[in-house]
């Protein structure tokens, strides 16, 4: 019996030696063993409360969740569509293909220069850091690398034909919501609409309750005796949700003309006052039509028929669209019941 145990022990030792030798010689399998290196999908985006995107320019933007909204750099409301696109990207993006060894260096060096660092936080803690690089040569995927991984990978969204790097941008003005006003119409107390070139059309709407709305002609100070209440409510609702097309930055050529614009006569000036007394003012200034812009008769137009330059609270310079403000650029006659 004793001898038998000895034999068993010898066999065990030999087998352990063989196992040890095999283990030391075993190829780690490289990236295949480390699935976390290419687990790009973040399925539960509802728990993401902060995203920080940085690039090498250097430029950085911080997006934080506050209730149902997201804030940009803790100051401005973020565009809902851009946030939804970003979260949708994080929830759906996945590995498309591995990168050949000989290309890895090139991809990584390009990522170092042109890439962005995306830090994703869940419940206040850093959850994952992803480096977003450039697009693949067929422009159907984007090179990305998870921090700590040993290689980048080509990442895509199944069903989507295109690259993803453009969804991770760092410019604050691109993330900012383009709302001029965004409030419950019931919280509006007063709206003043002034047409400097047409004083007779300028008016003021005052709302004390949804059934108690008054329209005053500014030129005469007279209150209109009978108004179309439906149109009045519609007007107030539209004024509660005004937006602009895009921000005009200091780097844009037109920005240098802001002072002269402010000193000139606007096409309109609308002021919205809420029940707390907070006011928001938007002025719109006509844009000179470009050479070759003609009307139906073929005559050169004087002004652009689609867009205006604008100022919000005399501060932020923006581009406005007539189409976007068509429900608020109305003359006083609009409210008159025949």
């Amino acid at each position, binding site marked *: *019996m004793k001898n038998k145990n000895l034999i068993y022990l010898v*066999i065990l030792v030999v087998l352990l030696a063989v196992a040890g030798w095999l283990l030391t010689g075993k190829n780690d399998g490289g990236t295949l063993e480390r699935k976390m290196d290419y687990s790009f999908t973040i399925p539960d985006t509802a728990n993401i409360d902060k995203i920080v995107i940085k690039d090498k320019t250097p430029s950085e933007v911080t997006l934080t969740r506050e209730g149902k909204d997201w804030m940009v750099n803790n100051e401005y409301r973020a565009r809902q569509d851009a946030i939804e696109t970003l979260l949708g990207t994080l929830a759906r993006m996945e590995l498309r293909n591995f990168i050949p060894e000989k290309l890895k260096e090139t991809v990584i060096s390009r990522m170092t220069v042109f890439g962005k660092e995306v830090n994703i936080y869940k419940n206040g803690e850093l959850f994952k850091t992803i480096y977003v690089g450039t697009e693949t040569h067929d422009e159907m995927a984007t090179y990305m690398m998870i921090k700590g991984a040993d290689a980048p990978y080509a990442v895509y969204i199944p069903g989507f034909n295109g690259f993803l790097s453009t969804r991770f941008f760092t410019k604050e003005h691109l993330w900012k919501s383009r709302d001029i006003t965004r409030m419950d119409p019931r919280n509006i107390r007063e709206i003043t609409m002034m047409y400097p070139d047409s004083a007779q059309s300028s008016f003021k709407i005052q709302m004390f309750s949804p059934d108690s709305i008054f329209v005053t002609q500014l030129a005469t100070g007279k209150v209109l005796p009978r108004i179309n209440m439906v149109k009045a409510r519609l007007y107030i609702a539209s004024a509660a949700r005004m937006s602009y097309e895009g921000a005009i930055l200091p780097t844009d050529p037109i920005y240098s003309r802001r002072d002269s614009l402010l000193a000139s006569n606007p096409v309109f000036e609308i002021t919205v006052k809420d029940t707390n007394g907070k006011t928001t003012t938007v002025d719109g200034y006509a844009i000179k039509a470009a050479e070759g812009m003609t009307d139906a008769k073929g005559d050169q137009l004087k002004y652009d028929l689609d867009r205006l330059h604008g100022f919000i609270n005399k501060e932020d310079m923006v581009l406005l669209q007539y189409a976007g403000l068509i429900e608020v650029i109305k003359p006083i006659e609009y409210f008159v019941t025949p």
Partner: protein
Amino acid sequence: MKSRRVRDLVSFLVITAILIVLNVIVSLKFFRIDLTTENRYSLSDATIDLLESFNDVLYVKIYLEGEFPADFQRLQRETRQMLDEFRAYNGKIEYEFIDPAGSEDSKVNQDVFEQLQYKGLKYYELRVNEKGGNKTQRVFPGALMSYGDREIPVQLLIDQLGVQPQAQINASVQNLEYALANAIRGLVRQRKPLIGFLTGHDELDVKYVADFARGLGENYRIDKFNIRKFKSDSTGEDLSVGQQQIRLNRFDGIIVAKPQKAFNDLDKYLLDQYLMQGGKVMWLVDAIHANMDSLSERPQFISYPIYDRLNIQDMLFRYGVRINTNIVQDLVSGGVSDRRSINPWVYFPMVMPQVKHPISKDISGVKLEFPSSVDTIIAKGVKKTFLLRSSKYSNVVATPHMVRLQTLYEQPSEDRFKSQGVPMAVLLEGKFESAFKNRIAPKANNEDLPKLLEESRPTQMMVVADGDIIKNQLNILNPNIPKGTPLPLGFDQFTGAQYGNKDFLLNAVDYMLDDSGLIDIRSRELKIRLLDVNRIQSDKLIWQLINTLVPVLIIILCGVVYIFFRKRKYAN
């Protein structure tokens, strides 16, 4: 007593440890023993060589995932096993099964379906039984394989016209190794062979071979070669036959697709010497003139021989084949639509593969149009294999022959269709004798031509007595794609039928040009041992009882025997 117990415990622990370590060792070191008669679980040497030839990660996304019938589940299972087998030889193969309808958002699923179709995967609509009724489910029995930044589709399910679904699955399972290995070869191969479409004799225009060329493009480089056009350089030197030969010889394979004009001696010399140096040639030749378009203008036309006009009969004869100037009719045929109905047209034989050759095995029926028959001639050192033969109900008519539209509406008399197995395509392999042996070579303008090669290296040639086998239709009917767009080869837009012409020709090119031997996998037969459904029904109860009661009885018996011997031991 105590020391004995201790020793027993030590024995137990050491034996357990041995078993554990043994399992660890086995998990670290790959080996397997295939006990099946047909070596079902063994990969071919060609596949193993291929798998061991690349170092980057090869990623396979298989879209065969979800709830579907048992047949598709079998295909899924076999695919997984095959890939595991591949991984055993190359750990750089990674795979993933993906359900393309996995999202709860139907719009997302639809986008995925469209993308997969765009990438070349086919789908099938299955009727699936569910509580409360039937449901239509879209299944993509295919995969996308990527290596580096290249990605190609792999069809796992072989689509065979007129074959039962279960048989199609069986054929697909048998074809799995080849399908996957062939795709890997296309991805990892550094140098793709060059295939040339010969021009200069009014061969088929580019748009009529576009779909086949597109299919070839996955694994080969494609180019045209006008054998009549000689290049001169900027020095203005005389055009050189030797240089033309060099230009021709750079092609690994040449396809001659439905030539209409005669080959002159120089053309034949160049092609002959190309063959002699080991080039592969695919001749797709109409020996007679016959065109369905003629019936759109009048109710009948005369088909007549044109083979002599091509002036290649002597060359092909020397190589061991003759194309006859006749027409092979077959009762097993493709249909023709007259906008009211689809009627079988005996002049369009549909050839079901009868030969267990890698080129023709398990492909769908191949449609030929006004084909002729081929005969083989004794040619020393050349092996001939007929690849396409007519059915048991065929007829051969000599030309000139009147082709009548009325034939479409007449019930053909079976008495006339008594020929069987008439060959229409042949593969020739071996060492060919030059057609210019003991002949005067063409003049070459004071140029010293290389010495005539009188015998070829081992090479291959295929001759099909129908030039239209490679011709794809152009879109006329589908309003969703531009008119004139080349349609898939083998697809008849008028009847909706999909024939196996493309697979046949692609397999032929693979067979002739692939040195790795991968194509031979296609000739392997895997015996699928299916359960006898009737026997299951009749013997079900017996086997249920055996499987339930016998183990219990065995344990009881063992217990009784043990107690008996133990009693006896200690009673003494």
